[in-house]
Structures are given as C-alpha cells and as structure tokens.
C-alpha cells in the first residue's frame, strides 16, 4: 500500500483495541444511503517510476529555448542554492509555525524576510506574504479602505496601466464590499498614466489611489506627482511595484513629499521559478501606524523564559483564527515556502547583486528595443523611460509573429491587443539579465524575418 505503513498484523491489533471487526465499521455513522461506490474517474495506481516517465513526457512537450515574456512573471537567474535549501524537508514539510518553539527556523526566516521587504520598499512593516501579486493588490485595496476612515466614498482610482489581470482580481475580490474602482486612462504617447485625467478627480472623495511602478507596459510612471496628488486629496497611496526594480529604483516610501504608505506586488522575480504562474507570493508592506489593518501573518521577535531572543507569530488578533468574521482578511495558508526562497535569494544577491540584476535587465531591454527598432516598420509604442519591458509596435499582426517565432523556439512576447484593443499590432517584450547579446541578436533576427514573411504573405 503506497504510503500507508500498516501491516495486516498492525491493522488487526488496532481493530481489536478499538473493538470493531473491520475498518468499514468505523464508518458506521455515515448513513448508508450516502455511501458512494468506487472512484472510477481516477485511474488505477502506477509506480513512481511510471509517473516519472509520464511527467517527463508532459514536461518535455512544453520546453522552450528562449523566453521573452514578462507581463507579471519574469525569468531571472535563480542561484542553485536557493531551492536546494528551500526544499530541505524541514522547511518543505513543516506547517505554519503555530508552535513557535518548534518552528524557530521558519519564524526567523520570515523575520528576516520582513526586514528585507520593508527596507526594499521603504516601509516599516512587512507581512509574511499573501497569495500573489494580484491578490496582494486586492488586499492592499481593502486595507486602504479600512485605514482611510476619513473617506466615505470607498472609491479607489486604478490606472489603466495596471496589469489587466491585477485589475480583474482586485475587482473580483473587492466586488461584494461595495468598493468602486475607477479607471484612469494612460497617455497614448508616453505610456504613462494621464495625470490630467487623474487630476480631473480632484476635490472628490477618493479613498485610495493605486500607483504602479513600472506599469504593465514596462513604463516608469511619474510617481512623485502621483503620490503627492493622492496625499493632497486625502487619499491613501498604494504602490504596486516590481521588487527587482527596487534594486535600482526609488522605493515607494520615498515617493513624493511623504512617501506612499502601502506597498504591494508580486514576489516571484525574487528567486521563484516561472512555474506556469504559481506558486508565487504577494508581498505587502506598510507604515508602522497601519500595522493593525495589515492582513496576513506577522512574525515578531521577543524573548523566552531565560531572556533569550526568539521569534513568534504576533498580532494574531488581526487574523481569522482569532477574530473570525472581523478579521483583516480570511487568509490563512499563505505562500511560506516561496518566502523562504525569496529570503535566500535576496541574501545571495545582496544590495549589489540586486542592483546589478535590475540594471542589467533594464539594459538588455533597452538593447533589444533599439535593435528591434532598426527593423523596418518596428517602433517603440511609448516614449517614457521603461524598466525591463517595452512595447513594440509592429507593422503586422503581433499574434501571427508570435506563433511563428514560437516554432523557432522563441517566445516573442505578448500581443497586447487582447487586453488593449487600441494597441493593435503591439507586442510586449521583456529581456532580463538572463539574455545574452547573442540571444538579443537571435530574437531580432527572427523578428525581422517573420515580419518580412508576414508582409510577403499579406
């Protein structure tokens, strides 16, 4: 019996001790009419060897050589040590550290993580993770609404330049709490949020303003103006950031005159593999004064009986297992293991490494954009500075080019028209530090070739 250690002898002794004849008797409280038959929809067992072969076959089908996709999930070098350590059984197979004395390893990791994320984002406090970047934005929005009691409108401004999936998730999760999400358009030239459009909301009751940096186009927003305007309106700023970019970019805590008090985002770039979209982790940091409205777990340092420093879950009264229907969120299981990976990743990279990864990713994307722009008919769609993604406007349909380049082993980018119909022929491309100059060359060659071919065909 795979994974069940009982010998027949054991089972007999146990049944005797209980005083029943067979295992089935232990289910005698279940009404007979509810008892089901065999689970015929599940195939019969196969051995680990057979499963391994099967999975290898499936995994091999999806392998791609060169990946230039971004849009919320980024390929970076993950040091070998990260997952060799993270998958150690003691991290991998532990539960939430409710028994602090038996979980100092996990707890200390989280405390270190909280320190790193707080500093990276320029805040005081970080929680111990949320599910992913999109749900973190939703939670940040709910938190901002709870915090900003002065505002009654529950109106939250969300730029159109926020990743459409993030906007959708925020909508789905906040929908039934009568929060109104108001979209702010982007400037079709710069690719930044149209500040004039934003300012047209001046004087109305606005609870919070979401500020993405970089935005979904990879473009850097005018975050200082953004933050100051929000503060002037009595609205809470919520920064949505890429954590790798913060190796190089100014942290939200320093945006504008006072900084932005709530920061969230997707943690995946920090040492978590692409993995088809998950498990990733959402991060959420804030100013000290807001901590009691922070959703999710929090680890604090304290002392034991002998005065020795140690770590424990703290401020649990915010959480569902204590405060139930009045908790700051329903979140229980979070993305702990990913936090472990990210903590190890950030330790290995350090401030210098993280800056280099950010700067190199930026440089590679610039290089790619410049080379692609040499192709007849290809041009950058936006003028504002970008981080490590760029939108290219092609002279042909982006979807067709993508499919053809895929056959050459290149994931060329994302056709933006499915999210932004007005951005016809636009391709969102990302190059990180993982791309060599030769890779960029391969990409641009292939792109030119396929555009040529598409034009010839049309």
């Amino acid at each position, binding site marked *: 019996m795979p994974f069940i250690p009982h010998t027949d002898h054991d089972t007999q002794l146990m049944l005797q001790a209980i005083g029943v004849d067979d295992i089935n008797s232990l289910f005698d409280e279940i009404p007979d009419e509810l008892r089901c038959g065999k689970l015929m929809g599940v195939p019969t067992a196969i051995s680990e060897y057979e499963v391994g072969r099967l999975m290898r076959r499936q995994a091999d089908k999806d392998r791609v050589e060169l990946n230039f996709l971004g849009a919320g999930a980024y390929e970076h070098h993950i040091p070998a040590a990260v997952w060799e350590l993270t998958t150690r059984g003691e991290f991998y197979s532990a539960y939430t550290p409710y028994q602090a004395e038996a979980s100092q390893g996990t707890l200390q990791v989280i405390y270190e993580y909280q320190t790193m994320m707080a500093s990276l984002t320029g805040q005081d406090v970080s929680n111990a993770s949320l599910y992913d970047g999109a749900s973190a934005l939703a939670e940040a929005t709910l938190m901002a609404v709870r915090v900003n009691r002065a505002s009654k409108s529950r109106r939250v401004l969300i730029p159109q330049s926020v990743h459409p999936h993030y906007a959708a998730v925020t909508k789905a999760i906040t929908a039934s709490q009568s929060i109104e999400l108001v979209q702010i358009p982007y400037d079709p030239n710069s690719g930044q949020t149209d500040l004039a459009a934003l300012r047209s909301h001046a004087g109305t009751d606005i609870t919070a303003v979401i500020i993405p940096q970089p935005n979904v186009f990879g473009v850097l927003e005018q975050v200082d103006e953004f933050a100051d305007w929000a503060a002037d309106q009595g609205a809470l700023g919520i920064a949505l950031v890429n954590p790798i970019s913060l190796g190089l970019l100014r942290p939200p805590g320093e945006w504008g005159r006072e900084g932005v008090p709530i920061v969230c985002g997707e943690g995946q770039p920090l040492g978590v593999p692409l993995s088809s979209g998950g498990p990733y982790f959402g991060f959420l940091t804030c100013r000290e004064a807001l901590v009691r409205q922070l959703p999710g777990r929090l680890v604090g340092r304290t002392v034991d009986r002998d005065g020795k420093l140690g770590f424990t879950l703290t401020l649990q009264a915010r959480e569902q297992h204590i405060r139930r229907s009045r908790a700051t969120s329903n979140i229980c299981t979070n993305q702990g293991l990913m936090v472990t990976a990210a903590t190890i990743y950030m*330790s290995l*990279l350090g401030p210098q490494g*993280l800056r280099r990864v950010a700067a190199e990713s930026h440089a590679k994307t610039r290089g790619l954009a410049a080379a692609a722009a040499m192709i007849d008919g290809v041009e950058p769609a936006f003028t504002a500075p970008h981080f490590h993604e760029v939108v290219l406007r092609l002279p042909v349909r982006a979807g067709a080019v993508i499919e053809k380049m895929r056959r050459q082993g290149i994931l060329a980018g994302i056709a933006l028209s499915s999210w932004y119909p007005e951005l016809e022929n636009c391709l969102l491309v990302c190059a990180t530090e993982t791309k060599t100059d030769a890779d960029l060359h391969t990409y641009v060659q292939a792109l030119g070739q396929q555009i040529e071919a598409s034009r010839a065909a049309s």
Partner: protein
Amino acid sequence: MSELLIFERGQPGRSASAQFPRHESAHELPAQFVRSEPPLLPEVSELDVVRHYTRLSQMNFSIDTHFYPLGSCTMKYNPRGCNSFASLPGFTQRHPLAPESSSQGFLTCLFELQEMLKSVTGMAAFSLTPMAGAQGELAGVAMIRAYHVDRGDIGRTEIIVPDAAHGTNPATATMCGCTVKEVPTRADGDVNLDVLRELVGSQTAGIMLTNPSTLGVFDKNIKAIEEVIHAAGGLLYYDGANLNAILGKVLPAEMGFDVMHINLHKTFATPHGGGGPGSGVVGAGETLKPFLPIPVVGTTANGYRWLDEADLPKSIGRLSAFMGNAGVLLRAYIYMRLLGREGLERVADYAVLNANYVMVQLRKAGFDIVFPDRRASHEFLVTLKRQTKSKGVTAMDFAKALLDRGIHAPTTYFPLLVPECLLIEPTETESKQTLDHFVAAMTEILAEAASSGAQCKDAPVTTPVKRLDDVRAARQLDVRYQPPETDGGAQIVNAAAD
C-alpha cells in the same frame, strides 16, 4: 542552538558574486527614478547563506523529522516524487502566458486533475485557480452570491456558519460582503437543527459546513440540514479541509452540497512549506458551475485550452494573476496518479483507523475524550479541562511537553468552543508504532500533570528557545531588524497593543 540574523553575519562589501551579472551597464535613467540608498539586504558569502539557512532549517519540526498530529491540518507524508517531477524544467520554466500551442503537456495534467477531482467529489466541474482553502471559500461564497443576484434574488446576504467552524469560514463570508449567523453545536457534536431551522429565511444566502466537522465527528443529519437550507432557498458550501476522512466513502455532492473547495495541501499531500503554498481548488454542481472562477481548462479538437470570460460569461472572475498555484496542482496530480483509485480509497480507511485507535488508547490512558460516544473521523478532540482545574496544567502545557518528547503538538484551543482542547489528527501515513509512541508520551505527561505539573509548565526545554513571551511580542512590536547604527536605541516600541 541559536543563530545570528543573516544581517549580523554580513560585512559591508561582502557578496556571493558568482550569483551576479558580471557587469553592470550604466542605466541612463533620470535621477528622480533612481534609488539613493541601497536597501538593507545581507552582505554575505554563499557559504554564509548556505550555513545559515541549513542551520535554521534544523530548528524546525516537520513531517520529515517528527510526528506532527496537528488536527485539521492533515500533516501526512509528502511523497518526494511529487516534488521531483513537479520540478522538471519543462514545468518550472514554463511562462504562465506561454501560448497554448506550447502548453499541452501542462494542460493535459491540469485537465486530468479536474476530471479526477470531479470523481472524488461528485461535483460537475472544477476550477483550479484558488490558491488556498480560504480563497476557495471566497470563490464559493462569491459564486453563491452571484447565483442569487443572477436570479434577481438580491436580498440573500446571510451566511450560516457553525460555531465550531474554522475561522476562515466567517472571515470569508465577511469578505464577500455577507453577514455571519452562527449555528450552535449540540452536545453530541452535530449541528443544532432546531436552531438552524430558526435561522434560515429569505435572507439566507447559504451555509458553510465541513463534514466531518472540525470537532472530528460526521454529522449524521447532513441530509436534514440540506433540506432545511435548500428549502429556504439557500445553497450549501462544503469546506473540503476534512476530505481526508471520507475519500471514497461519501461524495460531497451526494450529501447535497452545491459548491466546495478542497485543500490539496491536506488531502492530496502537497507540502505545507512552513505555512504555504496550498491550493483551494473549487468544485461546483450544475447549479453553480457557470459561476466558477476563470480560467478553467477545457478541450478543443487539437487538445486543451483555457476557458476564459468569453466561455464563462457568468464567472465570478479572476482570483489570481495567472491560474493559481500550478506547482501545487502538479504535485496533487502526481500524488493521485501514485495512489490511484484504490490508494485514494484506502486513505480514509487508514486515516480513520489511526484516529479511532489513538482515541481509544488515550481514553484507556485516562484522557477525557470530548465526544466519547462518537466515532472519531480522521481526527478527534481531547479536553484537558479537568487537568487545568485540578493542577493548572493547560492544553498549552501538554502541547509544549510533547515538543520535549520529539512530537509536534496537536492543534490547541481549536475549535474555540471546546475548553482546553487538543485536536488530534494522526493521518494515514503514520504507523502503529509511531501512534503507540505518541500515546505513551501523552500518558507520561498525564502522569506528570497529575503529580506536580511543574515539569509540564517548564516545557519545552529541549527546543532552541524555551517558552516565548507572546505578550511582549505584541506589546513591544519588533518585526524587523534594525542595524545598531541606525537603531537609535530601540526597536519599534509599543506601536500597537494587541
């Protein structure tokens, strides 16, 4: 055993430079965008990192090192093959937005997983996107609300929840904009039907229930409950956290549930990772199927594809940036293939055997079982009210005394309505020998508690730290390291009183 913080191990200028890009190009970004102070990240060597986190890992209890009978959490063995195969480069390097044409391997696994989940629950369809149980609950309650609204029945905003329910249930109802009505538990552990009948009405959106409940008993009146709720126009949500107890015995759909989630990290053995990630896949019967969150995997002539807004216009929408915790889903898929139909059917058999065996042995040893006349499901409750009264030895003291014996504590003080309780769940992957060892340890502690109890109150003494001061942790909030220079003499003090 204690370990400096990684920050304290570092030295300014030290680095693990094999991990960096070798060069750093100038960036030409306008100064206003650029960081002036580097973040407080460790400056350490690769050896520092490896040694530090290896040592920290050793400071954890885990399934791989200790018996971990944490009730409601189903800490069963996580087969190592699941990790290996889910970590194949083809899976880990796959971008979530890769074209379907280069995703057929992955989509095949997910589609088959959806099908298997339908089989083990009786539900009509599954969405794999929720990233933990609580998010599955959110999906389910949102679906219930959407269903009522879709029918124009907009006044249904109350969710009924048993008093024994897991905290995520009421918290979820609130997040979905509902009000929570608590239904009490009877002395025998079942839901109080009479009160339930009074609670329901035209405002009832639905009920959230787990069966067997968090009290470790199977509610025999489940069909009656169903009738009450459905008759009142409400729907039934099944909290699948306890599916391990009934796998292959009862299908939630046949108990009358309209929607449910499953904690794959419990029943389907994906690892808990020190707090996550999990997966709270959500299944629906025909009524609620149109409302499932997107994306869902569907079929086409050429293989598999994502179903999206266009295919599921009534969907409650998107709950994650992409499609949920894919890596967790793969682990569950592999686990189900390894166990197969026959293996899954055995899960409940042995989980329930183990729980009943330990319950009986503890009763014989003199422990007070909370529902002594009921079968244990995959877990059961012990109360130490008597010990607390007589010698002041609490459930917490028992928990800590177990740690000193190399056993992780059961869940303490949950459900909240049972005083001084331990919720004990051995799971099917533990052997009789391990259970006997646990019973012996519990018996020993009971004897200690019966004499002076002092030893229990001192426990734990073998762990890296002794009992921690939780009050101080909340009062003198210290949630991040601040290097001595910038410290100004104090951590964040008294930021919040809990």
